[in-house]
């Protein structure tokens, strides 16, 4: 399956902001029909990496390829045109605007020509409703402001929008981090579905428990550099967790936790507090 050309590929990409090295020689690749989880702690360079992939930042050095072709994105619009859709953490949703207006923001369907060219609202509303229904959200009124939707619903609108606009590569920035367990599982199931439909998914998260079930491969980022690319078969959940947090740190945390667990039993004040 991996003999084919990767859908998206980064080769030795670095990004500097002045004298800050945000990304240093990062390489990764994702094939169609694969979920690649990008794991990293805060400040690991995940956001910079996403923004580079989606055309917000231009890499300082290195090369990006889409379906084997080298690309340079001048703006997010170019990335979108090459089929790379990014669902940012802030979702690129505008609360005061209607679901339909948000759904088609920047790519409004039009009818008519010349000065009479106008948004095809009937079509737009219908598509928005359909796409929402497809992922299991029944929108009651496509003209209601996005601000009235719940967090999970907004996330799904954002993903549905990306998929609808023919994304070949779907970059999801912490799609489950703000969600409850049930809503997170809805989003994870949807990610799996997108993979089965042949999309290449880059799933950014720091939650290994969300990442492990849906991932086919992992890339770990730490302090701007890549710790490596692993197939799921090559690495266990615990190993991922260890590498992400830095094994030593986690071990010392374990030791500390063990310390905490012992203390209440021995300290009468703590046990009283626990009872009351």
């Amino acid at each position, binding site marked *: 399956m991996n003999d084919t050309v990767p859908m998206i590929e980064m080769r030795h990409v670095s990004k500097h902001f002045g004298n800050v090295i945000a990304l240093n020689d990062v390489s990764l690749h994702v094939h169609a029909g694969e979920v690649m989880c990008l794991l990293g702690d805060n400040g690991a360079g995940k956001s910079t990496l996403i923004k580079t992939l*989606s055309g*917000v930042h231009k890499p300082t050095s290195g090369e990006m390829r889409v379906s084997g072709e080298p690309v340079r994105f001048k*703006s*997010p*619009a170019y990335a*979108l045109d090459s089929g790379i859709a*990014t669902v*940012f953490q*802030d*979702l*690129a*949703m*505008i*609360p*005061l*605007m209607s679901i339909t*207006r948000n759904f*088609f*923001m*920047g*790519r*409004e369907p*039009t009818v008519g020509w010349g000065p009479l*060219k*106008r*948004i095809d*609202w009937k079509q737009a509303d*219908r598509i928005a*409703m*359909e796409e*929402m*229904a*497809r992922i299991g959200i*029944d*929108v*009651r*009124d496509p*003209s209601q*402001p996005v*601000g*009235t*939707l*719940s967090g999970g619903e907004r996330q799904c609108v954002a993903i549905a929008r990306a998929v609808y606009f023919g994304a070949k590569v779907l970059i999801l920035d912490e799609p489950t981090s703000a969600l409850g367990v049930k809503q997170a599982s809805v989003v994870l199931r949807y990610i799996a579905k997108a993979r089965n439909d042949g999309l290449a998914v880059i799933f950014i998260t720091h939650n290994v428990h969300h990442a492990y079930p849906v991932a086919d491969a992992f890339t770990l980022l730490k302090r701007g550099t890549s710790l490596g690319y692993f197939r799921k078969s090559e690495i266990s959940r615990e190993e991922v967790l260890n590498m992400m947090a830095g094994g030593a740190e986690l071990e010392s945390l374990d030791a500390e936790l063990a310390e905490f667990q012992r203390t209440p039993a021995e300290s009468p004040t703590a046990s009283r507090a626990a009872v009351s």
Partner: protein
Amino acid sequence: MTATPAAKDATREDERIAAVATWKKIMRRPELGAIAGTVLVLAFFIVAASGTGMFTPAGIMNFLEVSAQLGILATAAALLMIGGEFDLSIGSMIGLAGIIIAIPTVQYGWPLWAALLLAFACAVLVGWCNGYLVNRTGLPSFIVTLAFLFILRGLAIGGCRLLTGRTQIGGIQNHIPHDWLATLFSGEVATGLFAWMASHGWIATNFAGNPMVTGIPVSIVWWLGLTALATWVLLFTPYGNWIFASGGDANAARNSGVPVHRVKISLFIFTALSATVFASLQVMDTGSADTIRGMLKELEAIIAVVIGGALLTGGYGSAVGAALGALIFGMVQMGIFYTGVNTDWFKVFLGVMLLIAVLFNNFVRKKMMEAR
């Protein structure tokens, strides 16, 4: 097509939404406050100014003309405010555009159309500068355009004094007989219709049998035309969606592929152009230009837009609302005169109305964002 049944399912009655309260849908319209305000103000003056001639055809044309002039500015200011920015330089732009039209025609004998084109070209440049600086520096447009408020006023006064030795220029009408572009900014339309209505005795006539109101001033046509255009743009065009998006969250809009910078520059150009339309109408109407014209118009335009339901923070508002805001403004300004109340009180009324409008808008926004 295959998913149409699903959509039907989705549209079908949902037991959780007994009735998507119609009032809530109405509450979502930005014009709501302005419509209520218009009705209120209208009712007030119908009672308070009854029998004074405010609501005769001539009286109506009177206050409509005041509203129209402000409305031309307010339409552009509304689009810009929805796009998330202010333009405080439009008042000064009026003064500058006025003398840019007057000096070449009076002093140098240019044909009027050439002077008008020069004024509009300057407006495009000023609007572009405002927009470019706001985009480039990331400074609030409040500061950038405040700077231009002074710069443009200073340019108008300094330039005019330098070239003519005065700060006022009169007698423009002597230089512009029957200019083809002048008809766009002066006179009245539908004069034939009014004459015809007068001949049938449907409207009041003077002793000579001519109608008291001979036509619709061209400024009102501009006002209605621009309002209709802006409404069309906002509600039905992709560009309109981009304006909402740019004002709602510029970053989110940019990430979705909306050319935010281009949208903002074009909106600043539009406000400067609207100021120039205002100046052209005024210069044609009075036959003179004055460097201090247009003072405080930028604030009046903002008042009209806010009364019309736009949010100061951007992303929400309407052109119809701005037109109604301007209508209220005109009615109050002229109405106070008719009621015989000292017109000194006009500004008190205006300030109070602005406060009420903003409070009401905040309330509406909160209601809108309430989850279902």
